């Protein structure tokens, strides 16, 4: 049986992991490769690295980092943040990333999705959708959630599938950072509207939240960052719990 995936997300700035958004200081959480290795050891099913600076100078640092991660990590990993062109994608894939995640650039230039799919295969294009419930509807936001668009979430999800996306990473901005649980309603709707895998993101705070998103939606993966980084929830504990709750989970 296909297992549900638990995916830690590491935010990268200047080649280092950073943690904490609502904390007074943005603390350096150390070497991304070391943290990634720890998560792999603990049974993470995939990893996502998000470059949150994404300036030209830092791209070089990122590429070097991706090479290092690819050498050390024996599970699939996705790299996202600041990817604007097929050249950016080619550089990351060449460095060893298994998948790339695109967000604002997919909205700006939807043809990029098809271009990546044609050149590297659909399996390596993850389209990240940041969504927010506003004025009674779920809309798509870009630029790290700062800029609203006119796109409706479900329609955009269907469109990216049609354009060749292999997977959708769906983040609810209403839930992100709240630790009150995933956005079940929109995750469920999107997962039923498309036939590609959905990764639910935003709002994970407890083990029950993971159980809920896997039971109430068709999402096949769930992503979280801070609860893993801060040690509030360990991956082995989470996976043990989900197994006892009869969720299909990979044993490490």
């Amino acid at each position, binding site marked *: 049986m296909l297992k549900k995936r638990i995916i830690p997300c590491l935010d990268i700035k200047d080649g280092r992991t950073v943690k904490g958004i609502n904390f007074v200081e943005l603390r350096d959480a150390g070497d991304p490769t070391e943290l990634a290795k720890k998560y792999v050891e603990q049974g993470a099913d995939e990893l996502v690295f998000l470059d949150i600076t994404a300036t030209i100078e830092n791209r070089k640092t990122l590429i070097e980092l991706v090479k290092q991660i690819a050498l050390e990590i024996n599970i699939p990993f996705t790299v996202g943040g600041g990817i604007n062109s097929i050249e950016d994608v080619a550089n990351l894939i060449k460095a060893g990333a298994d998948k790339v995640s695109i967000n604002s650039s997919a909205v700006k230039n939807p043809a990029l999705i098809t271009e990546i799919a044609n050149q590297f295969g659909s399996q390596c294009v993850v389209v990240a959708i940041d969504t927010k419930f506003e004025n009674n509807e779920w809309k798509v936001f870009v630029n790290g959630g700062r800029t609203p668009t006119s796109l409706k979430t479900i329609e955009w999800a269907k469109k990216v599938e049609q354009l060749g996306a*292999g997977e959708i990473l769906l983040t609810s901005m209403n839930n992100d950072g709240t630790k009150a649980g995933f956005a079940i309603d929109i995750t469920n709707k999107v997962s039923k509207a498309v036939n590609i895998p959905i990764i639910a993101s935003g709002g994970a705070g407890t083990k029950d939240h993971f159980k809920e998103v896997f039971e109430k939606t068709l999402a096949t993966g769930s992503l979280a960052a801070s609860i893993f980084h801060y040690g509030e929830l360990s991956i082995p504990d989470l996976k043990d719990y989900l197994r006892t709750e009869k969720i299909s989970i990979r044993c490490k």
Partner: protein
Amino acid sequence: MIAIIKYNAGNISSVQNALTRLGFESIITDDAETILSADKVIFPGVGEAGSAMKYLTEKGLDKVILSVKNPILGICLGLQLMCETTEEGNTKCLGIFNSKVKIFPPTAIVPHMGWNNFSSISGCLFKNITTDNDVYYVHSYYAEISGQTAAVCDYIQPFSAAMQKGNFYATQFHPEKSADIGEQILLNFLEL
């Protein structure tokens, strides 16, 4: 020396990285002599079958692969290209395994992406491996079960998770991305 066949399929370096982690030197090459004289050959692949097969034929690599006498391991698209035909681009493949490759019907999420198990294992690849393990799959096409099937996975319907015929081995899953269990399967191949 281990030769990794170089062709227009993505992510070949991840196979080389996995071999490096296991302490094996390898070379990524499309040179016929190097491939034919290698102790082990790996035929990886992520990509589109039609263009991959066209490229192999143009470079004469199709004949080279068929002539390999030492153990050769096809991975993912590599397995599919070792079958008779594939529905992807209606492509005639290498015909090593007598299976046809078909597209998954859209009755569940496609691609089949993530960790899944296997059963009915046989052959050297699965030495010291039990069927309660999961490995990483990502594919939209599958090889039918045949007499050369060496492991079965059930997603939408049962298909060949691994195949073997003589010195030709293949896995639909990615051992190079399948954590410790994948490394054991790669080691089993490398120690043949």
